[in-house]
């Protein structure tokens, strides 16, 4: 049922786009249309030039996704562990988060060189603080009576964390995963805008450069497909955790 509605939405979107493109209701130069995009992707797939781009970006994204979620959660744990740390760091986190990451690009290049490291650093810069803020908030929201229960048994802060805080925050962490699927893609693409020899971000910026928007749209299309796959993974995890 849900799946059917989703398919209907997708199909009508693509059909409308196709028709609009074919009948020149939209500027094909700028927006292209699905069959043209698919054709381009197919050609590139056949001649083998697409796969390296995809695999590069997917690997960067997946690494960034896991590392970002992990670091963000660990940072949240660290901050949670000390009231003073929490109060001291809170404004820094928020202000740091407001720095436009693209403007920090040169910093990464200088620090990490023009390579994968910079791209992954960009992904981390984009995901970590948001993860930290959201997860930390969920730590704070936990009913203190649950904490009391384990304290009575003499639980240390670590044990309290493992037995109460973490399991109670799982739903929020999973929802952060959903946010991070998006942020990781943005991070790796923006990172590739910075420096790259290949990858979907490279294809996008190159597409802009050579005024081939079909290529840009095609890359976005591939991103959407892989983001969907990652979403499915997270959704499966969510289902499993909710029994």
């Amino acid at each position, binding site marked *: 049922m849900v799946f059917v509605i989703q398919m209907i939405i997708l199909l009508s979107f693509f059909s409308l786009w196709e028709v609009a493109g074919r009948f020149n209701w939209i500027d094909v130069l700028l927006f292209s249309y699905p069959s043209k995009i698919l054709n381009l992707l197919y050609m590139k797939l056949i001649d083998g030039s697409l796969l390296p781009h995809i695999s590069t970006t997917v690997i960067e994204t997946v690494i960034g996704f896991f590392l970002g979620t992990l670091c963000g959660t660990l940072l949240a744990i660290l901050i949670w562990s000390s009231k003073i740390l929490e109060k001291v760091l809170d404004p820094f986190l928020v202000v740091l988060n407001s720095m436009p990451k693209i403007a920090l690009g040169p910093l990464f290049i200088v620090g990490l060189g023009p390579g994968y490291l910079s791209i992954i650093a960009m992904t981390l810069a984009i995901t970590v603080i948001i993860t930290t803020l959201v997860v930390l908030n969920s730590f704070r929201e936990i*009913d203190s*009576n*649950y904490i*009391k*229960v*384990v*304290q*009575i*048994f*003499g*639980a240390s802060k670590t*044990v309290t964390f493992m*037995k*109460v805080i973490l*399991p*109670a925050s*799982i739903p929020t962490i999973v929802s952060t995963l959903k946010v991070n699927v998006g942020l990781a893609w943005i991070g790796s693409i923006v990172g590739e805008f910075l420096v790259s020899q290949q990858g979907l971000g490279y294809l996008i910026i190159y597409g802009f450069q050579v005024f081939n928007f079909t290529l840009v749209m095609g890359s976005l299309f591939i991103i959407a497909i892989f983001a969907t796959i990652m979403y499915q993974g997270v959704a499966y995890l969510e289902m499993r955790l909710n*029994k």
Partner: protein
Amino acid sequence: MNHAVKLIDVSHVYVSEQQALLAVENIDLSIESGEFVSFVGPSGCGKTTILSILAGLIKPSQGSVSIFNQEISSPSNKIGYMLQHDYLFPWRTILNNALVGLDIMKKLNAETKSHTMYLLNEMGLSDTFDLYPDQLSGGMRQRVALVRTLATQPDILLLDEPFSALDYQTKLKLEDLVFETLKTHNKTAILVTHDISEAVAMSDRVVILNRNPGRIHKIMNIPDTIRNMLPFQSREEEDFRKLFNEIWHELENIEDKG
């Protein structure tokens, strides 16, 4: 002296933005090892507050609290505390909820686990091991919380209205179960209850609390005949009714003054 619990001139004030409330005042009480003491008193007189202080969850505004001659400042693993509300973890099964104390204290092994399962069975929860708390009735949840507290076999047991959600028959059965367990292992216990017969049947002493602020109004000693019987049998004793009425009377006095 071999005191299990000793409260010296304990008072506690709850301070919030709106007000400062003197919840309990000048509590002086010593409980010997192996003793069973009940607290009775009107709702809101500070019973839970006293238990929380004993458990080390609240630092009293004044006075000192010691357990086996050691002053306490944080929860001690000698103490088991069954809170007034169950607070079972929704993400753990019933069995895992019951085992959480053992788990935290790193005492979980085949023996303690089978003991916990035995307790669950005794309390009529044998079919619920793999269920989650929201699949249980109120009384069943309360029993799980009781098992969770008993499972770690603490030296001192604090029970805050452990049987309030149970029917008479179950309650009587569990009173006997808890009573026997404690006596065999010579454990110390403090029970908060609104059921005067429960207090009389189970305890060595009954502490009657006054309210606003919570103070010790009177302490009743239970005669040996009743003390040494199982709670279920005590109720048949001659002196029982008399004691019951006496306590009832004291509580009525408090109520009228309040």
